[in-house]
């Protein structure tokens, strides 16, 4: 290691250039790093959507979901397949192992999809993969503001679908633009069933005839003289009259036109989603989906520019108004951290100035910050970590720690310089000073990096949230180490040269005033403790005891939710609700919101629009609450407080559940689709009815187990159906096939697309179905006539049983099997024993039919897994740290003495949480981890020096006191820089600060106690842990 120093000092220029190259590379990486608000916690997931117009969940599952699931089995890296078969929509979520390349996964899925497509019956929909995006991908929402009020909803939707959408999709980084609201334009042919009877025509003949009269063909070319003429026949229908004049049949030469059988008009397509605004009415809206891996802020910027251009070319009076942008979130998250970063840097530099007493060494130390940060950027681009709240936050946390290594080195150089005589070569002093500390510095930094190992093993959402932080801290620390051992000695040689004045000063005068004062104050203290070791032990025990007492009083909470700054109110209505009714309720709710002072507007999405981002059913409404600027609020409030006020003033909506969420949180939750309860018992099996009954039985058994709370069975049913069951005997009598009946039902009631009409490149479906009066009621459907082969007409109700039943809302499947979930929370007892008891009870009292299977999962399982992992990882990490310490000191005793720092550091962290009224949470746990490393570092600096002094022949007591006195400056400096570097995070109030604060609190508190320990207790205890010196440990 000494050789590294020698090398650096010999090749000073080379090292300098190398340093500049690394920093330049870091800057370039920084420019290319994607910027997001939060780390993307979306799972590696490929979604396959299939729109199957008009099909009930059972059919969707059977004909669409199942074939897709089956073909996806056995893909590499596959984790789980979950599917939801809803009315008219099949969603298959294919989860891959974390870290699987999304393009690779999509390619795999796409290959299998071609196979799946073959197995899905014709006309049952075409499976498509969702956009290449993640839960963070919905970057901008807008609505169309029609100030003229003269455009119909169809016209506006046409503008959205055929003008805005295609323009926006050309913006780089935009993968999809999804429209919702209004109606997609359609040419509707409303057939009068009586007219069918009159002219003896069937509805399917009409469908065929329209198809057969709507074509353009090409017929190669003819040669005329020397020229070629392309032959084309034009027969496309272009307008309503064209459709009306289609001849359906001719009787004795008298043509029967479609207009005699049906009304043709422009109307809106069937829709599964509505967008409303401000309680006034419907609007048309669009969602911009960002391509996976692109830079959010760049994409949003480009989209905004495009929107401005589009606003100019839109018809007069129509404007695109964005109502949600992730940009503001990204900006504020990055600003929060950047501010903290700058403030931290300034505070650190001030500390350096105060303790070093001159600018030049401070510059050397301060330079380690940009170097380490830029070095971290190189690493981030290597590991594909985006700039976001957590990764940037890691840098902010590490500011104080980045300088530690260099502080120790520079301080030692500074000290030796002051002690040195004029004759000594300055370069030589640096080499000696550096060699003295390089070993403990390196070990200390390696240990700090090592303590973050457990964080890398976090899984799931927490893992994805906190691993960027762990990565950037580790990278920055590595950078700071490189700086300290290579660049800092070189820089010191350039920047810290002895001035002439300095050379003249006597040794006494060379000492800095503040250091002298500090030592004056500290010396009696340390002497006291070294003399009366018992007091030191008592002090340590008191602190420890204090920690043990207050620890149980700490509350605990989950990771504090990242505040996105946008409030979304989610309304869940009854599953059987109609879209008309849910729209009505939503408008009422919006009007209520508008009455609240702080609310400027509300834009709501009900159900789903174009498939790709949302799969919500029509009973779910998401209201984006647009807030007035803060100065118009009644008082200064946080988002949570405001939510409380809104909740209070909003009141209850009868028949609807209301809860608050945030856009990204909501999307991610949906993608994770996990059960949030502690315990989730999944019952797998084939028959929905059996599943439901058995699940009820299990639930009632579980309810009897002590500690069970909130036991709930998933409501899988509740969607009313009009079930038409064809009676095979009856149709046999007339010689009709089941399909003949179903074909008529499908076309007459649901409608059948019979080609398209082109308007320039825009295309609109021609939909054939019965007139509303002939299909809108159950009795009307019963009257639909089916034509038998012999020409007889038979009403449907004579051929089939028509009844209203309650059908499934949706069918959920996991790994190719239907399942139903029973959720429960466990209160007041150990969950492990609860599960055991529950399993035994169910085993004995619920007799499941063959083929039915129960699995026990939920959060508790994840927790158990995490604990099991930690039970392995933490001891290994500790062992690793111990080994590192041991390699450094070659002494078990010394190593143990340093490990002793940890509990006392913990106490400080616990106390800080307690005093500031915060809870134990994942971020505070991360703080504790960081604390371990920092606490060890200080101990190492001190103990190393004690050993050195011992080696020089001093007595144990003398070595303890002298060592402590000499090292009080670096110890205090490193502790103070680390703590002060975190102060801005402690007081930051911007977006994302709620995650950083607990972390900063813990570290600052812990540093406080661990510094006391290092400075007072450690010298006292050193005697018992010291090595008998003859053989050198250094």
């Amino acid at each position, binding site marked *: 290691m000494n050789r590294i120093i020698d090398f650096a000092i010999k090749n000073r220029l080379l090292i300098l250039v190398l340093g500049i190259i690394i920093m330049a590379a870091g800057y370039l990486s920084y420019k290319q790093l994607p910027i997001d608000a939060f780390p993307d916690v979306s799972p590696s997931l490929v979604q396959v959507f299939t729109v199957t117009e008009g099909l009930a969940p059972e059919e969707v599952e059977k004909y669409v979901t199942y074939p897709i699931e089956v073909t996806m089995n056995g893909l590499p890296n596959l984790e789980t397949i979950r599917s939801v078969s809803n009315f008219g929509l099949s969603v298959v979520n294919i989860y891959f192992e974390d870290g699987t390349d999304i393009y690779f996964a999509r390619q795999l899925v796409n290959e299998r999809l071609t196979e799946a497509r073959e197995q899905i019956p014709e006309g049952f929909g075409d499976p498509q993969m969702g956009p290449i995006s993640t839960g963070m991908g919905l970057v901008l929402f807008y609505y169309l503001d029609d100030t003229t009020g003269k455009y119909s909803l169809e016209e506006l939707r046409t503008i959205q679908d055929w003008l805005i959408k295609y323009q926006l999709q050309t913006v780089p980084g935009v993968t999809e633009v999804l429209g919702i609201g209004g109606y997609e334009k359609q040419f509707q042919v409303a057939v009068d069933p*009586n007219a069918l*009877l009159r002219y003896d025509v069937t509805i399917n003949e009409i469908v065929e005839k329209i198809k057969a009269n709507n074509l353009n063909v090409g017929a190669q070319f003819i040669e005329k003289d020397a020229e070629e003429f392309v032959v084309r026949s034009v027969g496309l229908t272009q307008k309503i009259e064209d459709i009306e004049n289609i001849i359906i049949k001719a009787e004795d030469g008298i043509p029967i036109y479609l207009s005699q059988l049906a009304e043709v008009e422009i109307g809106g397509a069937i829709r599964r989603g509505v967008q409303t605004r401000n309680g006034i009415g419907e609007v048309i809206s669009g969602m911009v989906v960002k391509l996976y891996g692109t830079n959010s802020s760049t994409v949003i910027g480009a989209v905004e520019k495009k929107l401005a251009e589009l606003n100019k070319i839109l018809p007069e009076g129509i404007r695109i108004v964005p109502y949600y942008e992730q940009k503001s979130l990204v900006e504020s998250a990055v600003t929060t951290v950047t501010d903290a970063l700058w403030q931290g840097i300034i505070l650190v530099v001030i500390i350096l100035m105060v303790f070093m007493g001159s600018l030049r060494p401070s510059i050397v130390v301060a330079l380690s910050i940009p170097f380490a940060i830029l070095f971290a950027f190189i690493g981030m681009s290597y590991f594909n970590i985006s700039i976001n709240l957590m990764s940037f936050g890691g840098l902010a946390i590490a500011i104080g720690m980045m300088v530690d290594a260099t502080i120790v080195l520079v301080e030692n150089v500074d000290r030796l310089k002051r002690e040195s005589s004029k004759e000594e070569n300055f370069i030589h002093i640096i080499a000696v000073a550096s060699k003295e500390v390089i070993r403990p510095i390196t070990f200390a930094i390696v240990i700090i990096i090592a303590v973050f190992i457990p964080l890398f093993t976090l899984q799931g959402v*927490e893992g994805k949230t906190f691993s960027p932080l762990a990565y950037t801290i580790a990278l920055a620390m590595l950078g700071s180490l490189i700086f300290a051992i290579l660049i800092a000695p070189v820089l010191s040689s350039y920047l810290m040269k002895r001035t002439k004045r300095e050379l003249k000063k006597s040794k006494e005068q060379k000492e800095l005033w503040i250091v002298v004062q500090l030592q004056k104050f500290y010396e009696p203290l340390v002497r006291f403790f070294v003399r009366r070791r018992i007091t030191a032990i008592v002090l340590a025990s008191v602190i420890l005891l204090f920690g043990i007492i207050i620890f149980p009083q700490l509350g605990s909470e989950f990771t504090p939710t990242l505040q996105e700054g946008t409030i979304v109110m989610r309304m869940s209505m009854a599953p059987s609700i109609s879209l008309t009714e849910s729209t009505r*309720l939503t408008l009422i709710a919006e009007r209520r919101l508008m009455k609240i002072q702080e609310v400027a507007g509300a834009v709501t999405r009900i159900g789903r629009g174009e498939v790709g981002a949302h799969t*919500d059913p029509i009973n779910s409404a998401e209201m984006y609450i647009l807030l007035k600027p803060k100065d118009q609020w009644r008082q200064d409030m946080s988002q949570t407080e405001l939510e409380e006020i809104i909740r209070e003033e909003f009141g209850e909506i009868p028949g609807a559940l209301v809860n608050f969420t945030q856009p990204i949180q909501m999307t991610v939750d949906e993608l994770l689709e996990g059960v949030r309860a*502690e315990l989730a018992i999944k019952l797998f099996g084939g028959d929905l009815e059996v599943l439901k009954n058995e699940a009820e039985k299990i639930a009632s058994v579980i309810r009897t187990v002590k500690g069970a709370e909130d036991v709930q069975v998933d409501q899988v049913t509740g969607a009313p159906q009009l079930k038409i069951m064809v009676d095979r005997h009856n149709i046999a009598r*007339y010689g009709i096939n089941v399909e003949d009946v179903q074909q008529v039902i499908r076309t007459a009631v649901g409608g059948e697309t019979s080609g398209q009409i082109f308007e320039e490149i825009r295309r609109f479906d021609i939909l054939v179905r019965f007139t509303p009066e002939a299909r809108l*009621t159950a009795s009307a459907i019963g009257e639909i006539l089916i034509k038998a082969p012999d020409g007889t007409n038979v009403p449907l109700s004579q051929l089939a049983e028509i009844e209203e039943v309650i059908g499934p809302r949706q069918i959920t499947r996991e790994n190719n099997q239907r399942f139903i979930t029973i959720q429960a929370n466990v209160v007041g007892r150990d969950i492990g024993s609860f599960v055991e008891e529950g399993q035994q009870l169910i085993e004995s009292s619920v007799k499941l039919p063959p083929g039915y299977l129960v699995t026990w999962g939920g959060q508790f399982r994840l927790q158990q897994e995490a604990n099991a992992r930690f039970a392995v990882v933490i001891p290994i990490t500790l062992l690793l740290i111990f080994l590192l310490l041991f390699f450094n000191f070659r002494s078990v005793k010394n190593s143990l003495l340093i490990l002793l720092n940890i*509990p006392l550091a913990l106490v400080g962290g616990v106390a800080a949480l307690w005093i500031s009224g915060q*809870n134990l949470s994942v971020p505070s746990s991360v703080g504790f981890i960081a604390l371990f490393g920092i606490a060890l570092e200080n101990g190492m600096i001190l103990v190393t020096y004690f050993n050195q002094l011992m080696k020089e022949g001093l007595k144990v007591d003398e070595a303890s006191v002298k060592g402590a006195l000499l090292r009080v400056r670096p110890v205090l400096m490193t502790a103070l820089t680390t703590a002060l570097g975190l102060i801005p995070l402690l007081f930051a109030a911007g977006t994302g600060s709620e995650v950083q604060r607990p972390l900063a609190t813990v570290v600052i508190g812990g540093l406080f106690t661990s510094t006391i320990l290092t400075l007072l207790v450690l010298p006292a205890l050193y005697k018992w842990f010291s090595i008998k010196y003859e053989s050198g440990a250094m």
Partner: protein
Amino acid sequence: MNLIGKFLIGAIFFFSVGCSDDQNNDAVETEEHHETEEHSEAIKISDEVMKEFGIEVKEAGPGVIKSHIDLTGEIIAEPSRISHIIPRFNGIVKEVYKTVGDKVSKGETLAIIESNESLAPYEVQSLIDGTIIEMHMTQGELIGNEAHAFTIADLNKVWANFNIYQKDLGKIKVGQRASVSVGSMDIEETGTISYVSPIVDEKTRTATARVILNNQTGKWLPGMFITANVYVSEKKYPVVVEKTALQTLEEQVVVFVKDEDGGFRPQAVKTGNENNDNIEILSGLNAGDQYVSKNSFILKAEILKESFGGDHGH
């Protein structure tokens, strides 16, 4: 080593609490839902909210329910008012005086034919007052005595024949009122069913109902395609409610009833006859009860509220 052990336990504890808290949050949330679970509790809604959501209350009471069946059919000329004119002797048609659509009176000469046997001309005369609806005769033609030369119908009265599908057979009876109309045209008339065929056609499997229509104005043309609303029942019932009041709750048909303290309770009912708007209540509801007639769905949803919480979209 003891210290390390302690530290280990501490560290694991930090993580386990770190991970476990979200359940606590959830526990609180679901507890809230729990409170609304009681089904038997009456739902209280302020007048203001009722107005906001359009929930209307009406009094259940006696009412008349008319129900009808829609039939399709066609206009035909009354068979008893049709006469077929057949020339008595074969011969050559000499003169034709009338053509299709002409009104003729009884005894009026329609054509003159020269008999092949006697070579003497004879007159073909109309047998009834009516309109010529068919004619197979041109001048100079040799006409035989087997084909009818003229069909004359008296269209002052026509028959409207309707097809009754098997499912409706029992409901259509002689004497019921029927409103007969021609789809798109503005022609409508009410008549009485005068006949229901005692047999079902073997081919079409339909029976026939008949309404005799007056046709002095000639608006009903034989061959016209017509529809009829047959009023099959019109009865007064002691308790009738609007159909929009009915909701299905836990596989039972219920009506929401307002009790004395202004709360709403679901009341299971048995229903009887119905038409498009109203329905008879056989049991479960008394005349004079206050029931929710409009937007009762919101009340049903309120009861079901706890069951649809917690799940995410899809």
